[in-house]
């Protein structure tokens, strides 16, 4: 380990930069599929690009275009997208405690608070590196994700009937790929299956888009009433 001079990166900082940029590269490529799915779901190129500029949360964007493409109402598209965004609020709480951004810096920090920037930040051994990892990952993904969305939207527009290219199935594959890494424990797998069954059962009965929102009810119900995975902290009671 060498002490670096002004403007030079330490080995650790170089490692963080490498990690941030590789995460950003891997993530951004699938902005192409979002762009193509957006226009095939009935959004214009401009609307599709705005979801990446403003909404900027992959899962929520896929949900939004998925519900609209399926013929759902604006309200159910908003609900599905927003419920998927809730986790970002929890990332923000963690990052706020870890990075302590001040004043107006919290505005751009909020915009780039997503799965990947949070993951890179919390993986660092100390706060300076965490800060570097968060900003490098977040900004790099923001720039690349938006460029790739535009590329995908223009390509999707040029392709014609999306069904001929299986773009509707591409959305299925995208949702499954987003779900996959979350299926780490038996409880989550059971919950996901329950949510899938609830959604399937409700499809014939309630307006398009709402079955997805109802599935969120499964998570809320079990989270609010079910057994807890970890016992709550009881330090005070235990010592008294």
């Amino acid at each position, binding site marked *: 380990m060498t002490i670096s001079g002004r403007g030079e990166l330490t080995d650790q900082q170089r490692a963080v930069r490498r990690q941030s940029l590789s995460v950003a590269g891997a993530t951004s490529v699938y902005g192409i599929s979002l762009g193509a799915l957006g226009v095939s779901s009935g959004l214009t190129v401009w609307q599709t690009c705005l979801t990446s500029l403003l909404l900027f949360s992959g899962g929520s964007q896929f949900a939004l275009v998925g519900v609209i493409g399926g013929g759902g109402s604006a309200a159910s598209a908003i609900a599905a997208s927003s419920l998927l965004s809730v986790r970002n609020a929890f990332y923000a709480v963690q990052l706020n405690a870890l990075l302590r951004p001040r004043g107006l810096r919290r505005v751009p920090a909020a915009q780039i608070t997503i799965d990947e920037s949070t993951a890179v930040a919390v993986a660092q051994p100390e706060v300076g590196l965490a800060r570097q990892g968060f900003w490098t990952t977040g900004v790099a993904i923001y720039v690349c994700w938006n460029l790739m969305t535009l590329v995908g939207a223009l390509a999707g527009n040029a392709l014609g009937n999306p069904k001929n290219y299986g773009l509707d199935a591409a959305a299925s594959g995208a949702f499954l790929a987003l779900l996959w890494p979350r299926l780490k424990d038996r409880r989550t797998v059971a919950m996901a299956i329950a949510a*899938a069954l609830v959604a399937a059962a409700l499809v014939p009965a309630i307006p398009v888009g709402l079955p997805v929102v109802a599935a969120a009810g499964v998570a809320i119900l079990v989270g609010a009433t079910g057994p807890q995975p970890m016992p709550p902290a009881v330090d005070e009671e235990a010592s008294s």
Partner: protein
Amino acid sequence: MTVWTAVLVSSAIAFGLKLVGYLVPARWTRHPRVATTSALLPACLLAALVVVQTFTQGHHLTLDARAVGLAAAAVALVLRAPFLVVVIVAAAAAAATRALGWG
């Protein structure tokens, strides 16, 4: 107009949720039930989205080429393929199935 509403309102809510996390006192969110719910929510929503995107047409449950695409995506995921490969495999499998005259 409806699409504009969906895009703009979703964006405003998404940003609001992110920003509020930087502004609320951390203890408000430390309740274990809040943490459990927020961990389960994405998995449940995504599972429901898989089903609705793959097996429905409006109000009907259907089985068509999209199911073949989904199965191919699952195989790709088991083989640890990266995201973009999974998506392309799903699309290609469904397109091939349709080219063969089914779904």
